[in-house]
């Protein structure tokens, strides 16, 4: 952890010189009657790591394809450092891209693959050789220069793809599910690698994935896409702690979500009393109108289980319906008495933490700040 912090500190200066600012204005894509991407606008700052996540078919790859240039937008502008790139052909955009299957040229060696964008740009031979060496050193594959891509492992191919996509200092680096084809352990390792790489380059990265953990680990900001629209954009923390919709709350991490039946008027201390379906009453703090038709949402680790729950603003008794010890956490499903609400609970096991068995009766509760209101 310490190492990470010092790393980002040393790269702070290089970041200033790095990537381009991207602003997307009302960009959309229609296929006949189907809107793959509804008019979308978003600002991405220079050097930002911006992740786009969503289920398959949500339009995230279409959006990336429009930025790269191989999908023509139906309307809208993509402004990179003040210049609209939509009218420009794909090969003049000076964008870097890493594909899910890496798309390394199978008939060229590693060095030739990495050299290719420089060769096209007419860079002198000696200069190409020098920069290829530097670039391969950056992804720690200098020794593999004369290998063919098929002789490399998936992770190595991925790093070559990174080197090739960045050697010409593109204004933006696009990545389309770059870790999708790797196994879990390698994926974790490559996440670290990509993060380090981006910080060293200072590049603006737009990163598409369907893996929310990956996005949360890598990105400064995340956009969640659904049905061709960005439903919410924010930092990983704000998306997790203040989701605006049921979709976002469920897509990012776990949550217990209940429809709200009635709500009292807001009090002077910004709290109000709500009734959930099943009759459970709860006091919550809300900046928003917690009226009927909306949802109340609580994250599993915000719920206190055991005797400590008794003093909280919202305190109930319940029955443990499911109890599961997993490495790092104890997971429960607790049913509230007389209400039938089922809550997902996650407790951190410490040396003296009591584990409640299935069927046992427990105290359970949360404070006024732990529950959030979802507008839809």
């Amino acid at each position: 952890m310490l190492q990470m912090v010092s790393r980002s500190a040393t790269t702070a200066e290089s970041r200033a010189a790095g990537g381009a600012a991207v602003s997307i204005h009302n960009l959309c894509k229609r296929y006949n009657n189907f809107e793959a991407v509804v008019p979308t606008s978003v600002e991405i700052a220079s050097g930002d790591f911006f992740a786009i996540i969503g289920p398959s078919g949500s339009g995230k790859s279409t959006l990336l394809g429009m930025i790269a240039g191989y999908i023509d937008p139906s309307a809208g502008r993509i402004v990179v450092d003040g210049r609209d790139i939509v009218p420009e052909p794909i090969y003049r955009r000076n964008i870097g891209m890493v594909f899910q299957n890496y798309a390394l040229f199978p008939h060229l060696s590693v060095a030739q693959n990495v050299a290719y964008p420089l060769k096209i740009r007419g860079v002198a031979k000696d200069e190409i050789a020098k920069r290829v060496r530097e670039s391969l050193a950056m992804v720690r594959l200098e020794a593999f220069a004369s290998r063919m891509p098929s002789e490399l492992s998936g992770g190595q191919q991925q790093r070559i793809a990174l080197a090739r996509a960045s050697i010409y200092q593109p204004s933006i680096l696009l990545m389309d599910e770059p870790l999708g084809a790797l196994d879990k352990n390698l994926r974790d390792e490559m996440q670290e690698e990509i993060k380090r790489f981006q910080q060293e380059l200072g590049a603006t990265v737009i990163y598409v994935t369907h893996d929310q953990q990956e996005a949360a680990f890598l990105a400064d900001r995340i956009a969640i896409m659904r049905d061709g629209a960005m439903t919410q954009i924010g930092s990983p923390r704000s998306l997790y702690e203040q989701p605006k919709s049921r979709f976002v709350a469920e897509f990012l991490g776990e949550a217990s979500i209940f429809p709200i039946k009635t709500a009292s008027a807001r009090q002077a201390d910004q709290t109000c009393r709500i009734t959930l379906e099943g009759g459970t009453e709860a006091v919550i703090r809300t900046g928003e109108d917690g009226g009927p038709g909306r949802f109340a949402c609580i994250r599993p680790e915000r719920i206190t289980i055991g005797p400590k729950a008794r003093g909280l603003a919202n305190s109930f008794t319940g029955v443990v319906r499911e109890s599961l010890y997993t490495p790092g956490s104890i997971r429960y499903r607790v049913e509230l008495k007389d209400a039938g609400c089922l809550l997902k609970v996650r407790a951190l096991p410490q040396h003296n933490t009591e584990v409640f068995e299935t069927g046992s009766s427990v105290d359970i509760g949360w404070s006024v700040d732990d529950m959030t209101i979802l507008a839809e």
Partner: protein
Amino acid sequence: MKQRSFLLYLPVALLLTPFFLAPMAVIGTESFSGQHGIGAEYVKVVTDQGIRTVLYNTFYVAAMVTILSLLIGYPIAYVLARLRGRWATIGIFLIFLPFWASTVIRSFAWMILLGRKGPVNSILLGIGLIEDPIRFIDNGLGLMIAMTYIMVPFIVVPILNGLRAIDPNLPRAAAVLGANPWRQFLAVTLPLSMPNVAVGCTIVFVTSLGFFVTPSLLGGDLTVVSMLISEQANRLLDWPLASALAIIVLLLTIVIFALLRLSQLASRRRGKARSGVFA
């Protein structure tokens, strides 16, 4: 495991032994059974000026037909590879439509089309492009046109398969990296389709060496080796000479493909060595 894997050759061996190797052995034996002493037929094939001209013509026509088929077939395959769904099916159907008529009929058709007073010459004369009719038939030009027309589908299919097997992300990646469409083609599509180009060229070249009907009808004064073999075997009944001719053609074909293969291997090694510059 390794020892058993040669069993996979069994079906091929069962097919080739009675239908290719055995007849070749018979022909090989036959070629040494002449009355003028062992090997006399081979000496004749190599030294006889007339026979050497025939062999040269045969390989020249086959090579020209291969080049022409490639030049015409590659663009057709490229366009077909970009078609999707129904249009792709229609395209393939059209490519194979000529096969509904036999080679004899199609060769006759070209004879009529390319005749001195045929429609091609009439049109060219009519629009004033030429002043005298072009002599297609007696100089091998008409033969190469007709053979190319027959062979194009055989080169389109392997190239089309090769082009379809190329990951569409590869030319796309080249484009993102800065290559315009022409450079995308040169850097990615063309080299990756080369193995299939080689297959197509092989099929066309070898098939062209054995053409009989089309050269008989359209060859004019030009004789190819299949015509010579047929004449020796059927009319002059010189089976040993006919057999020796067949064996020589087979050997020459093997030599040509061995050289081709060697040059491929050499260029691949050069490619690896070139990338070593950066190592």
